[in-house]
């Protein structure tokens, strides 16, 4: 190859001249609608390479398409999972609202039917102490709640306020060992006392040995002692406990489901004029 500058320039000019000549030949062939032999030859040489690359590209395109399809499916899957989660949450919230609505409706009916003034309260805490069966309600002395006020629900007796704060109060549940309420069997008017014993069920004792009492009997408050109003459902007799003396006892399942307690009413005593 020419090494001198002039030689290189001459070579370049020659190459350009060849280029122009080939360009002119191609144009002439095109005008005459004749095939250009160099073009045909190059296409023939390229053809097998083009076929090979075409095959590879098609295979690659198939793989890419399948990967894109997989990605799309995975993306769709993720989106649907998020949607299912969102709808599940929404569904749970709606169920919750429906249940609350039913409870509040029952409470409203109860409140309207009840002769004395009732203050609605929401249970905001429960089971804070393992030593005491109690719940906290969102009402306090500012709302008119006082010490020893009785707390009820439409299902029955809950317990008694034992600690009053400005805006919250502690309610001692019937199941607490220190709770006690004068009660009577609704059917046979047999008296007794219902007490808690730190178990889900209550015990009704001081029942006369020969009293007419059987499983399934409804127990209501007797109003004795002047703390709990008379006639509030306490529970239902589950079984009679054998006793060797003059008295017998009965196991009572409370009317109120303390584990599911969410709303309650405080019976506000009528103020003396």
């Amino acid at each position: 190859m020419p090494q001198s500058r002039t030689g290189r320039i001459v070579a370049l000019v020659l190459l350009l001249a060849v280029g122009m000549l080939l360009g002119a030949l191609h144009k002439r062939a095109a005008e005459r609608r004749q095939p250009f032999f160099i073009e045909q030859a190059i296409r023939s040489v390229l053809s097998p390479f083009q076929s090979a690359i075409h095959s590879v590209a098609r295979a690659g395109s198939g793989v890419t398409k399948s990967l894109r399809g997989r990605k799309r499916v995975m993306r769709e899957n993720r989106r649907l999972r998020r949607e299912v989660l969102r709808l599940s949450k929404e569904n749970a919230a709606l169920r919750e609202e429906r249940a609350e609505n039913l409870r509040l409706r029952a409470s409203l009916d109860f409140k309207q039917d009840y002769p004395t003034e009732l203050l609605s309260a929401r249970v905001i805490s429960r089971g804070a102490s393992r030593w005491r069966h109690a719940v906290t309600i969102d009402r306090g002395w500012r709302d008119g709640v006082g010490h020893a006020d009785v707390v009820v629900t439409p299902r029955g007796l809950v317990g008694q306020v034992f600690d009053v704060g400005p805006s919250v109060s502690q309610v001692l549940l019937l199941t607490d060992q220190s709770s006690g309420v004068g009660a009577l069997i609704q059917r046979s008017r047999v008296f007794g006392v219902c007490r808690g014993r730190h178990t889900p069920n209550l015990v009704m004792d001081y029942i006369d040995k020969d009293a007419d009492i059987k499983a399934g009997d409804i127990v209501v408050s007797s109003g004795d002692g002047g703390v709990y109003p008379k006639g509030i459902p306490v529970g239902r007799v589950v079984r009679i406990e054998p006793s060797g003396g003059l008295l017998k006892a009965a196991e009572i399942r409370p009317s109120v489901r303390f584990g599911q307690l969410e709303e309650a009413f405080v019976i506000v005593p009528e103020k003396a004029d």
Partner: protein
Amino acid sequence: MRKAAIVFFAVTLAGALQSQMADRIGVFGANPDFLIAVTMAMALLLDPVMGGLFGLAAGLVHASIVGFSFGGFLISRTLLGYITASLRSWVFQENPFVLLAAALLGTIFCEGVYFLIDPSGNPVSLISQLPMQSVYNALIAMACYALIKRAMREERPQAA
């Protein structure tokens, strides 16, 4: 012989890639020009006349693929090959940044020359796509340069 085979294979493969792949791998509306990239890469390893000859061959292949404007392809690619090969004696050092700059400018020069010879194309489209195409070609040219250089490296005789 080995060098000739590499040159033949390079220009043929670039032509086949140009006809089958270039329009499928566009980025931001710009498609690579494998023949320009290979011309630049090969020319950096050849002397100017051989670079020009390779450019002429690449132009011929490109023109044969598209079937028009033979003059534009042949002259622009010949000049590209010649001038790129001349860089080796003027400014080229085997430095990635110099190589990248040369490859970037090579595309702009080549397409500019082509446009001067055959101004029938849309200049707005050319100008808007040229920067991206230059980068694309430059990256391909750098890869090709490394591959061709490695392929052209002659085996050293083993020490006795």
